[in-house]
């Protein structure tokens, strides 16, 4: 450690440079970073700089400082884009960001940055040996986004059992459709498609009379779309059951509506009769007074 302490204070740049490389080779990356930090500004523009900057980025990568590593790899690529190391630097920039991107249930902004970086690499070096790997990384990140969206849908579905079921039924109807729009090829669409029918029926059942018809019809549309899209689905039977239930609801709704209209007409007729009678009585009274 004494030697390193002396080096930290040293102004012999050649010695520093050699020592930095030595520590790097010995895989003592933290010490290498400290020495590179000191020596890099001084050797810029010399023949030593290129390799040193590359090692500097790698030292960060090896010590799992992915954000910094990504930055230094990008700087390296921008500075030495004709270098034979440029391809690796750009890949490592993307890879560092990829490794740094968090779990699906956290903020995914940095994952989107990673996707952009990977895309940049793939556009720039379509012939690269790492192309397949990059493709795999993108796939993995896309799956992460999909998982995030699916977990969000599941949460809305779960909360329909919570304190405000009505609000969450409606949230599910919108959210599940948005999911299908954003991830049309997702394997989760089958499950969510079934749940959409289930939820929209529950929503219709809780609706006020005036809105019931439209919502029941919407359920039927959702159900028919599901059966068309997933004819072999394991949920098929359940959906058919829900559909027939919806149909029954709709019929009883129509019956009720008809009945209601009949009764209103009847009531209206009675009121009119009553009014007419009152009028007649009043007229009779008036003429009697006269």
């Amino acid at each position: 450690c004494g030697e390193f302490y002396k080096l930290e204070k040293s102004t012999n740049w050649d010695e520093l440079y050699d020592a930095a490389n030595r520590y790097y080779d010995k895989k003592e990356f933290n010490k290498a970073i400290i020495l590179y930090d000191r020596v890099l500004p001084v050797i810029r523009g010399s023949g030593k700089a290129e390799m040193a900057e590359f090692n500097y980025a790698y030292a960060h990568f090896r010590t799992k400082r992915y954000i910094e590593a990504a930055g230094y790899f990008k700087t390296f690529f921008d500075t030495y884009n004709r270098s034979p190391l440029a391809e690796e630097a750009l890949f490592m920039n993307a890879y560092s960001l990829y490794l740094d991107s968090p779990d699906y249930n956290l903020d995914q902004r940095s994952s989107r940055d990673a996707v952009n970086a990977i895309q940049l690499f793939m556009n720039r070096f379509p012939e690269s040996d790492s192309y397949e790997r990059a493709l795999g990384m993108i796939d993995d990140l896309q799956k992460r986004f999909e998982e995030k969206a699916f977990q969000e849908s599941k949460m809305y579905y779960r909360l329909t059992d919570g304190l405000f079921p009505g609000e969450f039924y409606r949230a599910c109807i919108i959210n599940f459709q948005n999911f299908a729009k954003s991830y049309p090829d997702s394997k989760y669409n089958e499950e969510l498609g079934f749940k959409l029918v289930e939820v929209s029926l529950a929503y219709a059942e809780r609706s006020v009379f005036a809105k019931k018809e439209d919502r029941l019809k919407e359920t039927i549309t959702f159900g028919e779309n599901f059966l068309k899209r997933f004819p072999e689905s394991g949920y098929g039977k359940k959906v058919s059951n829900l559909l027939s239930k919806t149909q029954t609801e709709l019929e009883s709704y129509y019956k009720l509506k008809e009945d209601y209209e009949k009764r209103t007409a009847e009531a209206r007729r009675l009121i009119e009769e009553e009014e007419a009678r009152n009028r007649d009585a009043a007229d009779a009274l008036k003429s009697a007074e006269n």
Partner: protein
Amino acid sequence: QIRLGQSRFATQRPTNILDLDYSKPKKFRIAEIQAVGLSTLDETAIISLAGLRVDDEISVPGDAISSALKKLWAQGIIGDVKILVTKIEGDDIYLLLELTERPRFSRVEFTGINKTQEGELKDKVSIRGRVVRDDVLNNSQRKIKAYFVDKGYLNTEVKVVQERDTTLPNSVKLRFNVDKGTKVRINEIKIAGNDNIPANKIKKKLKGTKEHPRFYIFKDLVSRITNTTPRTAGEAISYRNPVTEEQIKEYINKNFKLNFFNGSKFVRSDYREDKEKVIAFYNSRGYRDAVITRDSVYNYDANRINLDIDIEEGRQYYYRNLTFSGNYIYDSDQLQAKLGIFKGDIYNKEKLDKRLNYDPQRGDDVSSLYQDDGYLFFTIDPVEVNIAGDSIDIELRIFEGPQVTVNSVSIEGNERTSDHVVMREIRILPGQKFNRSMLVRTIRELSQIGYFNPENIEPDMRPNFEDATVDIVFKLEERPNDQIELSGGWGGLFRFVGTVGLTFNNFSIKNIRDFSKWRPLPVGDGQKVALRVQANGRSFQNYSISFTEPWFGGKKPNALSVGFNHSVQRQIDMWNRQNFGADMGSFKITGVNVGLAKRVTWPDDYFQVSNSLQFQVYDFDRYGNFFGLTYNTGTARSIALNTTIARNNIDNPIYPRFGSNIILSSTLTPPYTSMNRSINRESPDEVKYQWLEYHKWMFDASLYTPLFGSNKLVFSARTHLGFVGSYGNRIGIIPLERFVLGGDGMNMMNFALGQEIIGLRGYENQSITPGRDFRGQPGAPVPYGGVVYNKHVMEVRFLVSPNPSATIFLLGFAEAGNNWGNYAEYNPYDLKKSAGFGARIFMPAFGLLGIDWGYGFDEVPSIANPNPGRSGGMFHFTIGQQFR
């Protein structure tokens, strides 16, 4: 030869110019690149930095050359560069990079500043490795100076010393000698032209520009006395000159400035903002034309400056006609009523904007009519259509727009906390009509869960005009929320007390096994784990651990909590020399509890109901008589069911401004005496209290309301009531779980196990407690502790610093309470009163710390001192949120 690059220092043009047609770029293949003029730099490295390579196809003139120049300059290591074409053979082009090297900075040092400043400045002045140029030097000097001027060192001087660096060829060592001088403070702010608004009011608006504290009244009196002639003395004595209130204020303002909380340093950028605030203040008083005609900053003495501000107030304006246009949904009368500004009112642009767009105090402005009902695009634009004399006609132009439905809701910035923990708290949902007050409530509730910086929760609306929908993104910023409590203090009889407490408010049990998700602990699922150890050697120890899952089952906010605690209190013999430190008796309580708290939506959704079941073992070892028990050694147990109904709608847990918190709780044990008829008053205590039988009721209500519409001054009223009883009268009320009143109200400072501690400032800890005089006597005539207590508190709080990393507020209080040993004596009008003041500071890592000084007006009688005086003044220290 063709010169292609723009050279910064080139003055002479090369002699033999090849004729190239600049209007028709042509493609060439680079046949050769050479670099000349290099001494320390490396040719290949420079060419590589330029991004050019032999065999590249480039167009001339074109991007390749200019981008090469840009790249070279960006490195900051060269003095000058030209790119020249030396030869063209068919499609082949020969390039020459003509470089000039200059010395570069190899080292940067500072003198005259401390390490922290040096660290910060090194980041700001990162010129190591760059070329020595005057502009770079000047720029750095300017940056250093600006850095110190911002800190109030207006007279900072920075000198640069350059030296050859012998360790590296062609390089320069640089030293900045900083002389920051002393801080310049503001002596006096002189305001002129303010005929209608007094100067001290204007000075109050200069939030970041304050006068130096001063206290000249003695100096002034002395100078008046020494300068008094008999004639003026006569005048002063006979009060012939009537003194107006304004004159008194002016005098006080001139001779006192008790401004100890605000610094009086001068920061130019703050001053600029402050001047705008003064104008805004004038505008809010109807002085629509007010301007600062002149202001100057000049030296008063070496370290102090004076500020002159001249104001031209102009006239005061009033509203005349207020008309609405473009409104179809609400008619003008409804809008006018909501606006609450009428013809003849003083013209106040600020208030008008508030009432139109967003009134943070009440939230019931004109926009709320529309924006709580989906009209997200609603805008209202006040236009001054006519100004006649001092009257202004305003037309309020409205655009109502369509009703907007929420399409999606998402969050950004949750780097530690899982999505579902945040999303489940959001009240605005897809499919709903947009609703501003729901949005505001969501922001409030997100700030209450404590994981995010409440000042930085921002909803980002991404509307889509075509289908009248909106995507809402809540932008969040995580903040550390774990609390560590490390405290030590002198606890009276018990001497030194140490506490180590850790509270993790965003724990994740699920992530414990996956080490890669620890940062630095398993976090993100919103669970709470609290560990606490408190001890002062052998005489008192307390260990507790608890775990809470706030959304047990994931469907409803039902909080499940599990806890374990163990406390020991020992009597140590301090006085006996032969037997020093012997254990003279101990009392232990060990308990476990399981609870479930539910949020309910009825009567409204601020209610919460919780139930918990607790089992406790009270273990006496030569200690029972402290509670007046007839036995010394033995065990008592209890199983109790606690039910609590609470309603809480306070707006901010740390510094509440609005809302109330009402809690009613009952604790019930099974009725053992009804089950076992053989137990009665005559039974020995071992039998009577083998299983404790009691019921206990507590009621607590607190209310917060801002004073004078300010968001800093808050009034709070609290009332507390509790009583313990027995089922029937077979064995009477148990001697445990009673009330102990007086002092700071902190459990840890009282070491009173098996009792309910209630504070009453201005009185000694535990001083208002029946049975206090008989404590320790076996079978005492009165058991220790009250069975019913009352307490009422009024507080006025003033927020000094809203900074979330250290929230500070001051308070003045008046409170009263009493504690009775039996129901016959209970008299809610016979209360011990006190008043005082205090301060609180909240730091996220330490929780709430407080100090109060209270004065007790009433006497606390005791047998030892039958004729005591008033309790008198005393200090109390508190740690943590005092609940009662």
